[in-house]
């Protein structure tokens, strides 16, 4: 026979057991989540490393006749062609206004898959080197309808949406096609020019290059050692 007092004790003990069980389960779940998260991060790091390793080197290995001279842009060592383009807010932005800074002029497009791969690297590199005076100017070469205002606004909105989705925090300028000729006829994307603090182009890359290579070119631009 169970008295009122002993029933209370039994209920309390059951409640204590339940609380203890919940705590144990929560602890196990936290440990499991921590391990899973750690493994996921490690796997992601390995995947990113593998992706970089798969990229071909800047120098075309299959072309034995190619020389260093062939691979260098004729613009290297020369002043970067001046330009004024609108940003996504309609504000005019000139390259000249960045004199004194090292600038990466990065031609890209919303439909360019390799551009999407390098964008997170660019965001990281900008954050890393901005304190030393480094900036990136994303130059969108997406078509803009110049005859139809409504369509033009839609085109700009698509670029803006892309910039937001990709978390781009550096200026994105539009109508890049209008300056591509000055930069040697930009055809393949991404194409980047690295401009030193004096406004001179010190390096250029065409196509997706690995992060280390981009970082080396940024350092070159920051050092201001013109080619």
């Amino acid at each position, binding site marked *: 026979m169970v008295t009122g007092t002993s029933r209370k004790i039994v209920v309390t003990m059951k409640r204590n057991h339940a609380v203890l069980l919940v705590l144990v389960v929560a602890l196990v779940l936290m440990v499991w989540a921590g391990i899973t998260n750690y493994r996921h991060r490690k796997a992601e790091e390995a*995947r990113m490393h593998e992706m970089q390793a798969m990229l071909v080197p800047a120098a075309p290995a299959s072309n034995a006749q190619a020389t260093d001279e062939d691979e260098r842009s004729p613009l290297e060592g020369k002043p970067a062609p001046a330009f004024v383009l609108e940003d996504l807010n309609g504000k005019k932005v000139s390259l000249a206004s960045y004199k004194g800074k090292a600038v990466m002029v990065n031609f890209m497009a919303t439909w360019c898959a390799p551009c999407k791969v390098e964008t997170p690297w660019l965001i990281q590199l900008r954050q890393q080197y901005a304190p030393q005076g480094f900036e990136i100017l994303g130059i969108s070469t997406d078509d803009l309808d110049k005859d139809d205002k409504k369509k033009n606004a839609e085109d700009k909105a698509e670029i803006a949406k892309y910039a937001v989705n990709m978390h781009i925090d550096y200026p994105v300028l539009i109508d890049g096609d209008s300056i591509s000729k000055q930069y040697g006829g930009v055809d393949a994307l991404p194409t980047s020019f690295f401009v030193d603090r004096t406004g001179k182009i010190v390096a250029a890359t065409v196509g997706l290059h690995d992060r280390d290579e981009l970082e080396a070119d940024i350092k070159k631009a920051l050092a201001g050692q013109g080619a």
Partner: protein
Amino acid sequence: MRRILVAGLLTASSCMFAQKLAWQSNAQPKTTQQVQFLLPEQVTVPARRPSTIEMHFRVNNGLHINSHTPQEKSLIPTQLMVEEPAGLKIEAVDFPPGTDYSPAFSPSDKLSVYTGEFVLRAHVVAQAGEHLLQGTLRYQACDANSCYPPKKAPVAVNVVGK
């Protein structure tokens, strides 16, 4: 003539050759086509009866173009734009399904692309006589490391209705 946007999308495919810089002497000029219309130059079909014309295209080696139905909205589909001449009615154009392609630079992504040779099938009804079917294939190509601006490849077929 009625201008028709028939359809389509081209995708880019992978090239395993090394990256060429735009300014290098043997780099392709901006006007070079990455997709060619191969054939037919001329085709004979029964007059006033539904017929199918197979249009063959080839994507340059090492490149891919988006299919007519790419996986992502931001990618530019392959489309065929044709002038419909008097006496030739184009009912529809069928695009082949794309093949799955994962770029080396982003192995987890799957693109729907055309590589090598691919065939579009135009369903037509021709009146008796000769009709010049003209148009352009709009496509956007990529290789292993780069993407190229959208281009238009000319297409011309002399359709003879008998």
